[in-house]
């Protein structure tokens, strides 16, 4: 075996690459099955449970966790917190990848994915909140793409196009916040039309507000969480500024997340009072609700506060993981666990393993794309030729 060949196999046959390759292979097989055999061939969806894991996780969780883009760019550009600047590009990248994957995953879930533009070009269903979500996600994906495109343009050396994109930053940021406010909240509002199917503890006329506020928590926590992961795996790709600012970002975002979690907790309690749902708290559903609210809202709120007060970055980073889990739990509770609570257990939904495999496949595609981009493009460092521009 020649020396160069061993070098290649050493660099490519890492455990990570092998696992990722397997997941991709399985995902591709299931993809073929999905588009030849229909949804019934690979999912446990039924007439009672039309939305499963692909909506609950890929769409609802995906969009919530991709909120880091708008939260960070708003903090930096609108609120003028320039010391978070090095966090903007990674956040925009993960936001863009997140939304791109959401749209990608939707192609698996809807029956006729090639018709996804129909609401906008054939017949708009203006009374539907899903129309609102679709319009905003489509527009926001475009906005994120333009915002993100400054990195590949620097990488490729297209100076003029890149400078034009940078000039548009403020307009894009404000548009991004408007669109995010709308579709993050509208994802919650999707369930407003089904008060008879969603358990009263989770159904509330405040659902859109809950979704919007918790998306801010998700965005802040994801930025902290991702940056701690990026530090572990891509430390060599970071420039001095990025490394220096990261701790400040974690402290600042941790403080913000703690405060927003506190507000979120308050409006959750207000929601209980408004609908007079206190008596449900003593039921089994109530116990599960309390697990979510106390364990994944109140607890991270407190832990963030402790981490910020003691300037303890380890606590803050671990708490960000807990807060992210809390958002995942909340979205899955609303879309799967507490939805159709009235049905007998035989009619309830549990995802088919192939649905889970596709969700894992989508996440893997995202991680691989992220890895490719941060190892090739100026994300975690500033491009030497464009340093002055910031």
């Amino acid at each position, binding site marked *: 075996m020649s020396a160069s060949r061993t070098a290649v196999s050493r660099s490519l046959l890492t455990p990570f690459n092998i696992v990722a390759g397997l997941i991709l292979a399985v995902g591709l097989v299931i993809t073929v099955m999905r588009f030849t055999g229909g949804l019934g061939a690979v999912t446990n969806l039924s007439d009672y449970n039309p939305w499963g894991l692909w909506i609950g996780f890929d769409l609802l969780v995906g969009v919530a966790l991709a909120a880091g883009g708008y939260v960070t760019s708003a903090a930096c550009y609108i609120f003028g917190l320039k010391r978070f600047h090095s966090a903007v590009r990674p956040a925009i990248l993960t936001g863009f990848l997140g939304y791109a994957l959401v749209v990608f995953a939707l192609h698996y879930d809807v029956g006729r994915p090639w018709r996804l533009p129909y609401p906008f070009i054939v017949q*708009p*269903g*203006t*009374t539907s909140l899903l129309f609102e979500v679709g*319009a905003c996600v489509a527009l926001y994906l475009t906005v994120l793409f333009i915002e993100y495109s400054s990195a590949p343009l620097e990488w490729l050396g297209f100076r003029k196009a890149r400078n034009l994109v940078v*000039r548009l*930053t*403020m*307009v894009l940021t404000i548009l991004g916040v408007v669109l995010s406010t709308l579709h993050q909240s509208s994802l919650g509002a999707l369930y407003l039309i089904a008060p008879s199917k969603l358990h009263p503890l989770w159904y509330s006329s405040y659902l859109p507000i809950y979704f919007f506020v918790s998306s801010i928590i998700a965005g802040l926590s994801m930025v902290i969480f991702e940056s701690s992961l990026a530090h572990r795996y891509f430390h060599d790709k970071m420039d001095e500024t990025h490394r220096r600012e990261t701790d400040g970002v974690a402290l600042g975002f941790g403080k913000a997340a703690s405060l927003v979690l506190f507000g979120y907790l308050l409006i959750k309690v207000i929601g209980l009072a408004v609908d007079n749902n206190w008596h449900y708290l003593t039921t089994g559903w109530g116990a599960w609700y309390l697990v979510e609210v106390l364990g994944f809202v109140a607890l991270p709120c407190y832990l963030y506060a402790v981490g910020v007060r003691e300037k303890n970055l380890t606590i803050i980073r671990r708490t960000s993981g807990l807060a992210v889990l809390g958002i995942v739990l909340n979205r899955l509770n609303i879309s799967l666990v507490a939805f159709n609570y009235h049905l007998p257990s035989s009619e309830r939904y549990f995802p088919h393993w192939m649905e889970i495999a596709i969700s894992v496949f989508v996440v893997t595609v995202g991680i691989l794309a992220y890895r490719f981009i941060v190892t090739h493009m100026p994300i975690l460092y500033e491009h030497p030729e464009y340093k002055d521009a910031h």
Partner: protein
Amino acid sequence: MEGGFFTLQDFMYFTKGVTYLIMVGALIAVTAFWLYLTDRDEDVTAEHEEE
């Protein structure tokens, strides 16, 4: 349909359609208005939006 709308659904379908168009207009208008408001400022508050 001649006498107006018979269902709330039809009414909303119509009014939301108009509102969506207004929203598109509003986003363009607010950008233009901001430029109009600030283009004589000596400071550089609006420099990012200059063409």
